[in-house]
């Protein structure tokens, strides 16, 4: 990377929470079972079924929020995010949009021989996982086991300035989530996932360039490699005075390249609205204090 451009990266990290049961039903939260054996009417979204929040998931999210120095919201609620996909049985995901559990945190990263860099965290929210699709020739199969597994999404600010910093952020975050018992963070099993937004801008510029979202980076190494590839791709385009389009690309680890995934400029309308089946989250000051006192290690003490 020449010094003509500055790299801007933000990460969207999803961590499966270490609860005993799923987020809205009593199915075990476990990995690696035979397809469609760990399911019930609730996580299958069968007609008439209703979600009930696993309070442990909220406690774990609060733990992470405090460990990441976030402001915990006094009001938070679940919204429905709508899209059609065979692995999403209700055709909406219970997620959080307007009122996440926590906002405005930070995480410090250290590069060898350099001073501490403080990376801001925009938001932290809870959502349910979807199932998995498997394709076999002309047929497609759905495994619903993962439906309703509790996920925590952590979105960083666009404060990361290199693929290496992105990796360091992830490593640091993983340590915190492991030590606080929030998640087991196994990227290979998918219990920690990461999408990255990356854009370039001319050095010294204050405006952001068009950002590209990169998916399918399934290891820390892949995150760094994928972002390095993408940064180089964008630099080549910009240097030749070509345009970088805002789009979602997928990392192909075997070939070591990113590929176009969704159509350029295709904004999805998820039609978020408050989930009428779930009351606002119970985030009382007493509960936050209880979680705080149970929290043994704070983010800054991990090093």
């Amino acid at each position: 990377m020449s010094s003509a451009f500055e790299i801007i990266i933000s990460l969207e990290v999803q961590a499966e929470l270490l609860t005993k049961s799923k987020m809205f039903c009593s199915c075990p939260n476990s990995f690696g079972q035979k397809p469609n054996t760990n399911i019930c009417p609730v996580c299958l979204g069968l007609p008439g079924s209703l979600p009930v929040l696993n309070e442990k998931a909220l406690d774990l999210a609060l733990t992470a929020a405090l460990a990441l120095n976030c402001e915990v919201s006094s009001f938070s609620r679940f919204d429905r995010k709508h899209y059609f996909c065979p692995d999403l049985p209700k055709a909406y995901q219970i997620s959080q949009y307007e009122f996440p559990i926590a906002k405005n945190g930070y995480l410090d990263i250290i590069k060898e021989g350099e001073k501490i860099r403080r990376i801001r965290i925009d938001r932290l929210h809870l959502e349910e996982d979807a199932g998995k699709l498997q394709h076999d020739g002309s047929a497609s199969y759905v495994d619903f086991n993962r439906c309703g597994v509790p996920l925590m999404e952590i979105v960083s600010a666009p404060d990361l300035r290199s693929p290496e910093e992105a990796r360091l952020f992830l490593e640091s975050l993983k340590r915190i989530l492991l030590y606080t018992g929030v998640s087991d963070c196994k990227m290979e099993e998918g219990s920690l996932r990461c999408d990255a937004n990356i854009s370039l801008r001319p050095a010294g510029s204050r405006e952001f360039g068009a950002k590209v979202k990169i998916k399918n980076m399934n290891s820390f190494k892949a995150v760094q490699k994928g972002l390095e590839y993408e940064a180089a791709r964008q630099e080549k385009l910009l240097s030749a005075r070509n345009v970088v389009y805002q789009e979602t690309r997928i990392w192909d680890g075997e070939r070591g390249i990113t590929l176009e995934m969704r159509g350029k400029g295709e904004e999805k309308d998820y039609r978020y609205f408050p989930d009428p089946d779930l009351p606002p989250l119970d985030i009382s000051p007493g509960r936050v204090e209880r979680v705080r006192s149970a929290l043994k290690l704070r983010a800054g003490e991990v090093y």
Partner: protein
Amino acid sequence: MNYYYKMSVAEAARALQNKEITSKELTESVLERIEEVEEDIRGFVTLLDGDEVLLEAEKIDQARVSEEPLPHLAGIPMALKDNLCTRGVPTTCASKMLQSYCPPYDACVVEKLKESRTILMGKANMDEFAMGSSTENSAFFTTRNPWDTTRVPGGSSGGSAALVAAGEVFFALGSDTGGSVRQPASFCGVVGLKPTYGLVSRFGLIAFASSLDQIGPLTRDVRDCAMVMEIIAGHDPRDSTSAPKEKEKYTEYLGRDIKGFKVALPRDCFTEGLDAEVKKVVMGAVGKCTALGIEVEDVSMPHMQYAFPAYYIVSTSEAFSNLARYDGVQYGYRADGAGNFVSLYKKTRSGGFGQEVKKRIMLGTYFLSSGYYDAYYLQSLKARTQIREELQKVFRDYDFIVTPTSPTVAFQVGEKGDDPLTMSLSDIYTIIANLAGVPAISIPCGFVGGMPVGLQVMGRPFEEGRIFQFCYALECLLGVRNQLPETGVKRGGTVV
């Protein structure tokens, strides 16, 4: 042919407990009645096998003979609206989409009715996914009004109301999103209650609009309604919107003095659109209240004008979301010939849903679109808050709000087919209670041209007991209870 089927739930329960009759005799009477009139009424989407139903009745009779303790309503035949999940029994929502769907679990209310050893006779017809006011939107057939089979029974719980009114079951459950229990109760001359939001668990009720839906009983008198509520009300941890309330003995309210109760009459409900004859009957009933020592006063509720748009935005938005899951992947109808996911969705949803359901899904899709959310959905929430506050204000000074249940008596089948707006406007008095979450009941209060007229009583949240207390006294005074039409001899409005 005996006439046991004409008894009320309370009468039948007493006769069973006194061993004057057996549950088998009671069930046989109902089966004979079904044989006699169901061809004309068409209230059942699914009718359970008579032999198996009788077997269940015999088991209860044996238990009674051997002096086993039995719940109060054990052995009484009933029906369930076909949007209440019944394990192993088809639950179709009167939609092609779920025509073959058999749920693997029972709704909370179904569990409770099974524990009470009531006898399920079958599943009742309805408007598709509970969207409609006449059962004409059923994908299968239209149920007929037992008082005049050329007329609709109302909707969406029209099958439930018609079955109760025709003597085919002793009681039924319906669901009420904007009047879907009360309006058919009114049209069929029976009692129908929409309980306070959160009083009856929605677990296993196939959702139309989650923040408005409540399950409620349809019965032939007020006492029966109170008895059924004693069974189905109560907190359920599987429904996060279920209220953590202690169970109440509603029947204990019956017969208590009602002197000193204050009733509000919203004058906005007695103006344009209300049929003059219906108004006369309702006002006549209200006039009699004063004889009971009840104070009746006019009130103004100006925010009621927002009820209709607010209801339409909230209910269609939630319906868009709740009905998104019917995609042909897991269960239910799946269209043939789809080459990929997108065409599977398009073909399945185009072919599986009826016109009215599609219309409402499209409306909801529009209201929640980015850029329109604030203008529609958010505004409707504000209107909803204002309506709720307006009701709270009235309830500070008054115990009840009384209105007609519907502006007209039951209309002719096909009469409003081309005018969906008029049909929806027949819900105008009932939607307020859903928007505000308050309880509301419809009780028969007289007839216009041989067709029943319903009176609606709204009360404060969780004051169902006082509603029963008031309506029981009113029912005694009006002398309109447990009236069955002479179905079977009357067809097309004339005696044949």
